[in-house]
């Protein structure tokens, strides 16, 4: 059996009075684009920190490409690149110095060609010799991505990479990260932007209270858990049978949650019979936000075998 890109086995992390991770087990395969979702405090950052060696687990194991992150930390860390959430930087150095130093930390002292390539790919060429302090937030974020790539790790973890980022940069980063994934890098993304996870990730784990409450292919989660959303502008009083499916309502704008396609025609029939006039209609699969909210509130678990 080949090594997983990341594997955690019965990972547990407790602080006095708090269980941050409650015996979490996960396996991320090489080449995957994997999403880690969950509310604040769910344990996403704790999980990443343990895999990256920034925090020590209370019990359990974590491995990167088969290397234990504690016992075989050198190989594990060489295989992993992490883009932290906060815009941290060293104010003493320029962009190029920062990347050369980061590269040197991994023992790579003749890495200028690759560094130049990364700088170009992330559109940092104009600022390569500028001090980190003088960069905008968006540029600092691009440097963080570059720092995670200097040692060409097969596995890259991005912790909320587009938080507070403008639309244009978000698209640029998505494109860039997709490109890395196409080249074979394993990508692990934590995000609050469910639209982002839905757009980019092939498989998703949802954490809540330190436990995995969902782990499945994105498509499966969407299809099996939440059914359909039917949004419409409708006049007239809704019949009771339809009113029970209302998820949102503002004036004439109504959103219904249906469990499947089979319910669409009967619902429309009920509305017609009740004399309601439908002015506008949209039927769509529920998005990840619906799944997320459903799972978080119901406490249901959905783990793929």
């Amino acid at each position: 059996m080949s090594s997983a890109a990341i594997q955690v086995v019965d990972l547990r992390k407790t602080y006095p009075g708090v269980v941050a991770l409650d015996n979490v087990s996960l396996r991320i395969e090489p080449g995957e684009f994997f999403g880690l979702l969950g509310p604040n405090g769910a344990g996403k950052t704790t999980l990443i920190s343990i895999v990256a060696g920034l925090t020590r687990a209370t019990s359990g194991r974590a491995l990167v490409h088969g290397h234990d992150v504690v016992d075989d930390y050198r190989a594990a860390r060489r295989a992993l690149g992490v883009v932290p959430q906060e815009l941290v930087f060293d104010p003493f150095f320029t962009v190029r110095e920062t990347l050369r130093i980061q590269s040197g930390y991994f023992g790579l002292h003749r890495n200028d060609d690759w560094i130049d390539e990364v700088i170009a790919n992330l559109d940092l060429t104009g600022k390569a010799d500028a001090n980190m302090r003088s960069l905008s937030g968006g540029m600092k974020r691009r440097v963080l991505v570059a720092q995670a790539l200097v040692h060409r790790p097969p596995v890259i973890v991005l912790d909320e990479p587009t938080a507070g980022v403008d639309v244009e940069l978000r698209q640029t980063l998505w494109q860039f990260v997709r490109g890395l994934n196409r080249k074979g890098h394993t990508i692990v993304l934590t995000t609050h932007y469910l639209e982002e996870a839905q757009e980019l990730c092939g498989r998703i784990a949802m954490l809540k209270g330190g436990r995995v409450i969902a782990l499945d292919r994105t498509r499966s989660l969407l299809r099996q858990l939440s059914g359909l959303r039917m949004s419409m502008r409708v006049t007239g009083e809704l019949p009771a049978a339809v009113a029970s499916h209302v998820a949102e309502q503002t004036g004439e704008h109504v959103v219904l949650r249906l469990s499947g396609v089979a319910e669409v025609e009967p619902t429309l029939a009920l509305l017609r019979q009740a004399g309601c006039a439908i002015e506008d209609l949209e039927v769509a699969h529920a998005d990840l936000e619906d799944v997320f909210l459903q799972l978080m509130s119901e406490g249901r678990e959905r783990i793929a075998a």
Partner: protein
Amino acid sequence: MPRPLDETDESPGASGFRTLLYKEVLRFWKVSFQTIAAPVLTGVLYLLVFGHVLEAHVEAFPGVSYTAFLVPGLVMMSVLQNAFANSSSSLIQSKITGNLVFVLLPPISHAEFFGAYVIASVVRGLVVGAGVFAVTVWFAPPGIRAPLWIVAFGFGGAALLGVLGLIAGIVSDKFDQLAAFQNFIIMPATFLSGVFYSVKGLPPFWLAVSHLNPFFYMIDGFRYGFFAQSDVNPWVSLAVVASALALVSAIALRMLANGYKIRN
């Protein structure tokens, strides 16, 4: 499938120690006005003020002018204070700004981490010490009688304070706490270690207190290298400094190996 670069291009065992040391030295070098020039000026000021005031009144060692007596003490004081400042301030800034993560993510061992921070502190301490000496020697050249002792105590003292700075940087969570360490422990210990006076002239209680102060042994031994005179046998001083260095190094390495406060 992408593989880590070092499997193909460079020697797989190459470590980040060299770069971490380079970065720690570059860090203080880039702001040399603050980190080197300013302490040198402070040393010179002490010499001018205390030397002028006490020259005619105090003979600490027989046959040695007070100002000349002062020079090695001031040199050592600046070595010790700057070695401490280098590792402690670097670490706490990295912790508080969060950029320590860039040092924790790569495969750098705790021994390499220790070595880089301590050696950089020694470099800074010795550079500042050399600077203070280069300027103050013009006022009252002390003469050098036993240079090997100067080297031994210079390196040993700088290393000891570099390690103490590392520990202080690890333990402190806020600049406030580090400042307390510096102002209530390091500063008093340096000032009350015989930089400005010979402890022989102290009343018995204070003499005993001085002998409990490790800084005293560093200053005294260092000074022996210049005048071949000291309050305590330099071999005793060397033993004290070496044991203190071994002890704090063991503590620091233990902290780093356990990830205390850094990889909590």
